[in-house]
């Protein structure tokens, strides 16, 4: 326990009861007269009877199949579950020898960005758990990871029968972020609850929507989907530019085409929506974009391998869309702003991607020491066709070839280099501004906001 993180007051007020015990054992029942509890003519005795009766009769076990993950800290996750005995029995019958030797396991799937280039698509690991218990503490070896799990029976031959899927958790980061970027944002002015209600209230999933489409971006930067309702029609979306033979740069003509479309939509936005009006996007109008994304996904998956496994709660039909687009790493204000050679250093030698950029625009020279290619990839899922909220994660995929014999380090991570010198590194981008920026880029094809 560190002093820094010791709960202030943990030895605190709650200890006021130290030595005195607590609860009814240290109290004196109310006299038969009315308790001073307001106008209701209740005696203390009657109140106690009601309380005792309800607690005795109505503190009930949790029912229904459920598996829940909760992150404890960067290296531990807690899982609890509830599975009907009948479901467990039914699952056993589907296994060899009626599942006599099958064990109950938590099958974890690592959904973290940067892990799906391995085979199988997402790394998985099993944690064997005791059937008699209904919860487990799982130790992990990396922080800032994104997991889901499935509780199921695993037979000795490896056959797995799933019983219930979990929610998703992201374990906390245990150290500084590898992302180095500096951009300013205006603090939102205070707003009262009444003002929100007077303005029509906030929809249930506004939080996610606002994260996807930060209203603080000026209209010219708004996601084009936001204008679909205002203009009464969708902005015609040019086809996605094709990846080059080597996954290289986009065709300039394609950027120009989408840029013109965006300019039209931006003008419409400015004309029809106030600066503070939050865009409301009818789900139906998103569908054309979804279709476009699905086509793109199919095309990309044909290049990179099998699709991602759906991970969602039972009864939810996810749509998983992958929209990778190659983007030139901009010369200014990038997440990573320079590549430099670090011979020696921590003993690994080789190269590293990193460094920081002064917020006032200090010199930052883009001098790649090795040929690199960057691809932004988004994974978007929604609870159902045309439904919100949309959840998304984004990552920057950096590919290149290392001609040096030295080990390669990018963003502080040792990179596996193939026999031919090629490598791929996937860097997760935070939701929020970066995500909104990605979507803007995917739609505008302009690349970096600063014109890079």
């Amino acid at each position, binding site marked *: 326990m*560190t*002093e820094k993180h010791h*709960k*202030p*007051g943990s030895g*605190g*007020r*709650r200890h006021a009861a130290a030595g*005195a*015990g*607590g*609860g*009814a054992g*240290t109290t*004196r029942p*109310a*006299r038969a007269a009315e*308790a*001073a*509890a*307001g106008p*209701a003519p209740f005696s*203390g005795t009657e109140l*106690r009877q009601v*309380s005792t009766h*309800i*607690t*005795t*009769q109505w*503190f*009930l076990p949790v*029912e229904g199949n*459920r598996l*829940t993950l*909760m*992150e*404890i*800290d*960067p290296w531990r996750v*807690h899982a*609890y579950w509830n599975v009907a005995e009948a479901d467990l029995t039914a699952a056993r019958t589907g296994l060899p020898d009626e599942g006599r030797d099958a064990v109950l396991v938590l099958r974890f799937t690592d959904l973290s960005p940067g892990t799906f280039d391995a085979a199988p698509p997402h790394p998985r690991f099993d944690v064997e758990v005791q059937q008699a218990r209904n919860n487990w503490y799982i130790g992990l070896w990396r922080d800032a990871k994104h997991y889901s799990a499935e509780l199921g029976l695993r037979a000795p031959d490896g056959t797995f029968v799933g019983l219930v899927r979990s929610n998703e958790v992201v374990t*906390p980061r245990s150290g500084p*972020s590898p*992302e180095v970027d*500096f*951009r*300013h*944002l205006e*603090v*939102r002015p205070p*707003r*009262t*609850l009444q003002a*929100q209600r007077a303005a029509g209230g906030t929809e249930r999933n506004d*939080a996610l929507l*606002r*994260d996807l489409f930060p209203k603080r971006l000026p209209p010219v930067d708004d996601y084009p989907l936001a204008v679909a309702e205002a203009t009464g029609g969708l902005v015609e979306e040019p086809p996605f530019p094709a990846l080059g033979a080597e996954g290289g740069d986009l065709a300039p003509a394609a950027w120009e085409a989408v840029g013109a479309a965006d300019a039209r939509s931006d003008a419409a936005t400015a004309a029809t929506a106030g600066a503070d009006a939050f865009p409301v996007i009818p789900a139906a109008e998103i569908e054309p974009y979804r279709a476009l994304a699905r086509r793109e996904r199919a095309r990309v998956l044909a290049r990179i391998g099998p699709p991602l496994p759906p991970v969602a709660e039972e009864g939810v039909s996810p749509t998983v869309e992958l929209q990778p687009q190659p983007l030139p790493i901009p010369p200014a204000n990038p997440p990573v702003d320079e590549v430099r050679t670090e011979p020696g250093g921590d003993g690994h030698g080789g190269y590293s991607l990193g460094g920081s950029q002064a917020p006032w625009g200090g010199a930052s020279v883009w001098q790649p020491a090795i040929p690199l290619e960057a691809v932004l990839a988004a994974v978007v899922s929604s609870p159902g066709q045309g439904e919100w909220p949309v959840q998304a994660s984004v990552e920057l995929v950096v590919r290149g070839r290392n001609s040096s014999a030295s080990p390669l380090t990018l963003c502080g991570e040792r990179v596996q280099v193939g026999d031919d010198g090629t490598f791929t590194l996937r860097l997760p981008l935070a*939701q*929020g*501004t970066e995500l909104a920026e990605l979507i803007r880029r995917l739609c505008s094809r302009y690349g970096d906001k600063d014109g890079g």
Partner: protein
Amino acid sequence: MPRGYQCIVLHAHLPYIRHPEYDSFLEENWLFEAITETYVPLILALERLRDAGVRECLTLSLSPTLLTMLRDPFLQARYLAHVDRLQRLAAREVRRTRDDPAFAPLARLYRDRLEEAVALFETRYARDLVDAFARLQADGVVELITTAATHGYLPLLKTETVAVRAQLLVGAQTFQSMVGVPARGAWLPECGYYPGLEGLLEEAGYNYFFVDSHGILNATPRPYYGLSAPLVCPNGVAAFGRDPESSRRVWSRQEGYPGDFQYRDFYRDIGFDLDFDYIRPFILDGHTRIHTGFKYYGITGPDEHKLPYDPAQAARRVAAHAEDFVGRSRRHIAAQGERRSPAPLIVSPYDAELFGHWWFEGPQWLEAVIRRMADAPDAAALTTPSAYLAGHSSLQSATPSASSWGDGGYNAFWLNPGNDWIYPHLHDAAHRMNVLARQHGDAAPGSLPYRALQQAGRSLLLAQASDWAFIMKSDTAKEYARRRTRDHLARFNYLEQCVLVGTIDERRLQALEVMDQLFPDLEPAVYC
């Protein structure tokens, strides 16, 4: 223009403890002790500062449950009965110690403090301390903020987003109805934050919140100014990070000011030191020794041997510690280099109940710090988050990392083998409350189904209080915490069943409304 700023934040919170079903209840003393030892001394200090012309010197978080209890006539009456009992004890103590040159002044000190508390509580503010704090905010001395409705630990409730949302919305609504103006800032219970929470904070109308140090230091992208400037989340809500150095100076058992040997010892109390027959009339149940607040010894040293407490010597240490705190803050800001924008900011949050209750001299120290900084603001000026943001509206955009100020810095204190059994119940109940509110959202306000829905929401909120999981992990009052969790979950289950089958026993519903009498304006729709 100051070179930098110091923001002192006190978080005042107590769980909702109110037991009309008993003539007296031990745990209700937590509130009574806090009123006498913390809230009244704090109000008196802030009033003196106001009269001296000091403004924007403190940020004070008042939890919705504390606000509710401070405004509760039932608890106000019990507080006065509690103080009356202590005043009778004080009179006996003054007589008992009259020939003891070391203890007699202390007995008179405690007697006078009780008289002062009653005068402020009953005469000046007509039992309404919320009004006292609201006036101090209206005078520009403090900025009042609030927290989640029952102090639910949000990172472990987020499995059901509706639970977090209701905690924040009901908390914000309660504050506004009690104080009269909305709170701009949110104190996250136990500083528990997870990425994405800022969206719900914005929805509840908040402009900023606080996280622990590593929430800022591990933010994405990296914070360019470290802890010395707040960040703004992508949705425009600002995040302030706790400064570990100034926190350690108050919290640390080894290095902290409260452990100074000249200060009053908390644990030596006549409730444990004197003959039981003498103390018996002044304790609640007549057979269990408790702290009375009459403490005559100083800390003296690490062992059991204690010397009588000397307030004059302690006052000198208060002055020295205040000077030390202010000096360190100024040096810390100076070390940030030349003047810059955003100006360096040190955020120092503490539990309010530390001041006065645990650290007897805490309110004096706080007043001394504020006076020193107000006298020479050029090197480091006091500020509040809203005042700082008014001058620094453009900040680095980043998302803090998941964090808390609990042991280990994450969720372990509220999720461990001692309390993990509560979460399946809490998550399941939140899910069912969502379903219930959607299915019966057309119930007419004031009707029995509507009242039952409201009471189910209250029961769920009360079951979610972080205090219960906290106490289960600690060493004392565990059974009370378990019982409270079971009681509220059972009440929720019962009320849910009543609504579902359409048969509501009004007498029982009214009994539950009498026992859990908070959040009168709770709208079931908050769970939709």
